[in-house]
């Protein structure tokens, strides 16, 4: 059976309309063999979590450049917990001041990529997480057997 592709939801929250970053990331993750679903602009935290559920994604990537990251992203994390799908990898990218990045990490974001991060670095981070998940699942099922 062919290996399942990693499914990534890329999201823009609120009224932030800077799309260069998310466009480039979408293409680079596709080039890295992942399946990318993009929410489009003007999403609420609830819409993003519903999309993650419906599309059954493994990773949620949030792109933020307008400065409202602290308003929206913690709400996404809360909703993921409410829906009991907080096992997804959540990565954030964009213009994020250091102290905001620290708070986001503390509230459950797995990694913050600020401007200057390489697209290959993001793809590698996701791939490594995925491989780790796969191997831990495999070891759980072999223990079960």
């Amino acid at each position, binding site marked *: 059976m062919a290996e399942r592709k990693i499914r990534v939801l890329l999201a823009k929250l609120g*009224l932030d309309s800077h*799309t260069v970053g998310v466009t480039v990331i979408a293409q680079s993750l596709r080039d890295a063999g992942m399946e990318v679903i993009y929410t489009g602009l003007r999403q609420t935290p609830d819409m993003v979590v519903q999309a993650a559920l419906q599309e059954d994604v493994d990773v949620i990537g949030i792109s933020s450049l307008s400065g409202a990251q602290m308003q929206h992203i913690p709400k996404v994390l809360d909703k993921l917990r409410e829906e009991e799908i907080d096992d997804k990898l959540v990565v954030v990218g964009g213009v994020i*001041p250091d102290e905001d990045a620290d708070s986001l990490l503390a509230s459950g974001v797995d990694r913050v990529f600020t401007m200057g991060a390489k697209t290959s670095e993001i793809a590698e981070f996701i791939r490594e997480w995925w491989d780790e998940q796969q191997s831990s699942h495999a070891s759980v099922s072999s223990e079960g057997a």
Partner: protein
Amino acid sequence: MTAAPRPSPDEDDRLEAAERRWRQDVLDPALARTGQRQEAFRTQQLHWPVQDVYTPRDLEAIGFDYLKDLGFPGEFPYTRGTTPGGYRQDFWKMLQVTGFGTAKDSSERWSKMLEQGLNGFIIEYDLPTTNGYDSDHPLAEGEVARAGTAIDTLPDMVQALDLPWDKLQHLNSVCNAPQPVNLAMILAALEEKGIDPASFTLQMSNAILIEYTCVGRYIYPPKHGLRIATDCIEYTIRNCPNWIPITVVSAQIYAARANPVQELAFGFSIAMEYLDATLERGFDIDEVAPYWSFVTGLEMDFMEAVSKLRAYRKIWARLMKERYGARKPESMELRLISSPGTTGLTLQQPLNNIARLAIQMLACAAGGGAYAITTPLHDEAHALPTEEAVRTGIAVQHIVAHETGIADTVDPFAGAYMLEVMTKRMEDEVMAEIEKIDAMGGALAAIEAGYFQKELARSQRARFSEIEDGVRKQVGVNHLVDPDEDRAIEVFKLGQEAERKQVDQLTRIRRDRDEEMVAKALERVREAAMGDENLVPPILDAVKALATQGEICDVMRDVFGVYHPDSLTSGV
């Protein structure tokens, strides 16, 4: 420098022989000893091959004709500038793009900037305002007063325009999708303050088609966006003839990583879409073309930047004269603002950005012709600029103007062999791309089909790959990287206070206004939207009745619908 006279056939032979000898006897032995830094050299964004040397033979090869291609400043084809005396007559107007917090916060900063040496500024509104939402809309949470100033109602605009009017020559208002509301608020605020609209120049962006292409702050479907924009243009030409109702900010297309050819071709195609829509309302080309204005972006490849500025003027002149049959010089004279720092500022080692900005500013001045230059700021990659960054940005403008001598002759690099070759090639490639867009049915059709969006996505990916793969060196990013760099920089902070104050003020105004008057005024806006009456007058009445920005836009949302791009037109 002046342009070399065209060589005669004899001279051409002599030059060819001389070059052959130089290559054989001088260049080749030198390269045999040291080699070249790299195998091939190309320009940064267009990847045009760069020759080792350029000679008069290169001008001969492109059929360069001094009078046809250059001429004199202030005359067709305006390659050398739109005014005869260039920056010897006066420096460019020095502007900055800014806005944050409440109207009061912004008017205080703007007043200070005018006192510090700027001639004007570009008002940046927050995202709720530019998207036509009030500050208490659920989508606005966290965005209010953040990346620009918040304007919900007329009292906000009255407060925002609390400025030292004796120092202000030029005001640029960047608000595309809700432009008629923005225009109406400015008109009503000036009336309330007793300021004559003829005492300064208001320049409006109003180029909604760019929002669908790359910026994303659209509301209605593109054809309705175009109608609304055209209403503003028509109203302004008839009522405020010294204002500039349309600015095609090709810098935004450039900031979305278009290459210079795409920037100009997409920008001109969009400009012509508005021009055609305005002409359909019965104007003559010479009545409207002088109102069209542009903002261009600049980056670090100096020769690409200078040739782009020169080609920009030449192509506009040709389009107006040859395609539209304009007769008045003003119709052919490109009204251009140059905007350095559009891309290419780095988060890493942010002080390096001051050097980058100075070089780009120099390219602006060398390319000439811009009647205004906006100062970008070195810490913009981090957050809202600090006051120190604002001051340094102003200083960079004055250093280039007063300390380099670049502004003391008109079009100082004219005749440089490489520059003329590049300017001509830029012109030819932009014209070819414009023709391609024409064949699709023009800019509106190209946007509706997702062509611009797809081309930009491709261009963005290529530009990022070059930096990541190290093909293009960027100091602090992939060259001279400091692995221990402390990226801490003093960052301008804005608390939650502004959002709370803004929402309080909006609530108070809604509570105290005459609801019946508001409802009647909004109904008039609806009637106008449903027919083909110009929308500005009823919106002006609604604004004066204290209808909010969001309420007026909601009426139009109801009539025109809301634009939702699909996977084809989103570019992703």
